[in-house]
């Protein structure tokens, strides 16, 4: 059940009505029940796996705090979670790599490939589980003893499919509080959901048509279409992911929960380092907290070399986490190089930009960072290293002239996409100054209602709800 579907609309409406109609103590159980139903719609088998993960981490958390083998229990929990993720997500990738290597040596790889379906959200909930165990070990959090609270923290339906990578130490205390219906909070949350839906269905899903057309067969194109697809993919990814996050945050806010912020105008970043503080924040801070920081502290005697090693390690892992394949490894390495460069040149860059007015230097830095972002995402979106290589060498080749309107979006729809992107940027600019929701709230009732109606009509009419395709293939 994805957020931008009618089924979710019905699910969430029924959920909320009951949520606020039952007594405060029952609400937690109701969330747990609804989350189980929600996840069951994705995959009944996935539910079994997730239940196993929850029980496993529930026990390790308690054992880390109580038993005499704290460190061993910590490593058991980390290896258990990573092991599960490895089997489901990475086993085949490394197995194929091994096959290739062995073939070079003239050997045959006897290990067969696994045919498993990756459980929805596994990349997200395993990270949260690891974070939880480490926090308990570092005594930043008490292990949760109430099993239903612990289970709800992991199953919590707004975040189960695509995050944010919430820290149990943030969410668990909120699960213990009693929630009340708060008119302002609920209406604010509903607006956030609508905003996320707008980004997802009007911008992201519309752009995906063009992006898919080009990336599915990049060799058909040179020049402008390649540049356009790279540019729009970056925007699509942002609109898609941040839209989804807004809906997740909004749904939680309706219920009275505050989840982590995940995006902070990433395209306003002035450096790659800055970008990673603004993009998928819940994940990048997770990496910082549980991977980069321990590594760089362990290697602190190596000074900057230690940090650079930690950066590379972190970004290769980050790349592989985002997707399985060499393009993602390389994408991680590219980002690692950029961060290492920025680490070594902090002082030099400061001195250099002092020659210009701060406004100019800021804008130039933003543009450079954005171009880097587009190029690095171009890498991640390519279906293979070969495709990526082709795209990078044909940005300025004009031999095949394909009109930008022949890429799956007709002029009218391309115009709508661009209009929607401009609207998104304008609103986000204002949001960075003051709350847009507060601005709307200050308007007279007629204007407010007109805005709501218009927004809903825009989403309904301009949104892309199906991609137009009917999934039945055989009949």
């Amino acid at each position: 059940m994805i957020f931008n579907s009618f089924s979710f609309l019905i699910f969430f409406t029924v959920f909320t009505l009951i949520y606020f109609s039952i007594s405060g103590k029952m609400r937690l159980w109701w969330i747990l029940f609804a989350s189980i139903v929600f996840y069951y719609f994705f995959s009944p088998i996935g539910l079994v796996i997730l239940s196993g993960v929850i029980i496993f981490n529930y026990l390790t958390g308690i054992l880390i705090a109580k038993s005499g083998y704290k460190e061993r229990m910590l490593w058991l929990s980390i290896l258990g979670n990573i092991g599960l993720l490895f089997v489901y997500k990475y086993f085949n990738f490394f197995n194929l790599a091994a096959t290739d290597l062995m073939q070079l040596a003239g050997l045959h790889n006897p290990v067969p490939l696994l045919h498993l379906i990756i459980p929805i959200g596994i990349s997200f909930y395993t990270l949260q589980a690891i974070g939880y165990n480490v926090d308990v070990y570092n005594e930043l959090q008490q292990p949760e003893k109430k099993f239903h609270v612990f289970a709800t923290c992991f199953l919590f339906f707004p975040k189960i499919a695509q995050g944010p990578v919430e820290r149990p130490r943030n969410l668990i205390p909120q699960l213990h509080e009693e929630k009340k219906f708060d008119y302002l909070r609920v209406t604010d949350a509903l607006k956030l959901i609508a905003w996320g839906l707008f980004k997802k269905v009007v911008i992201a899903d519309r752009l995906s048509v063009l992006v898919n057309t080009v990336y599915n067969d990049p060799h058909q194109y040179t020049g402008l279409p390649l540049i356009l697809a790279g540019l729009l993919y970056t925007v699509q990814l942002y609109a898609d992911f941040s839209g989804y996050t807004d809906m997740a945050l909004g749904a939680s806010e309706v219920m009275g929960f505050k989840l982590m912020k995940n995006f902070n105008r990433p395209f306003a970043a002035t450096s790659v380092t800055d970008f990673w503080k603004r993009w998928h924040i819940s994940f990048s801070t997770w990496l910082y907290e549980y991977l980069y920081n321990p590594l760089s502290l362990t290697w602190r005697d190596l000074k900057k070399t230690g940090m650079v090693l930690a950066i590379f390690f972190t970004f290769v892992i980050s790349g592989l986490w985002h997707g399985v394949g060499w393009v993602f490894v390389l994408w991680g390495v590219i980002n690692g190089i950029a961060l290492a460069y920025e680490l070594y040149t902090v002082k030099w860059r400061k001195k250099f930009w002092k020659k210009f007015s701060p406004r100019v230097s800021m804008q130039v830095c933003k543009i450079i960072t954005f171009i880097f972002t587009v190029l690095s995402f171009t890498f991640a979106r390519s279906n293979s290293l070969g495709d990526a290589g082709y795209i990078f060498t044909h940005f300025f080749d004009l031999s095949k002239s394909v009109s930008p309107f022949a890429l799956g979006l007709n002029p009218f729809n391309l115009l709508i996409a661009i209009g929607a992107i401009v609207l998104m940027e304008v609103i986000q600019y204002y949001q960075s100054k003051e709350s847009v929701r507060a601005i709307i709230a200050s308007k007279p009732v007629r204007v407010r209602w007109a805005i709501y109606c218009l927004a809903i009509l825009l989403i309904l009419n301009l949104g892309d709800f199906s991609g137009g395709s009917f999934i039945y293939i055989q009949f």
Partner: protein
Amino acid sequence: MDQTEILAQVTALFKRVFENEHINVAMETTADDIDEWDSLNHTAMIGEVEKHFSIRFKLKEMLGFKNVGDMVRTIDAKLQGA
């Protein structure tokens, strides 16, 4: 050396590592309070502190620092133990 003295020395180290003469450091100060205290400078700062006091932090200790006070108390305990 008492904790006030340790804090004073730590403050001096901060000023040097973060290259800012105007930093005020208290026991309650966290990384959020100091602009220059980012993920990269953090490692350098820990290294400087260890060198200055001739001590060695354990990973668990470093990850458990919630503010300057935590670090100062750990330094204190290490110096006492030595």
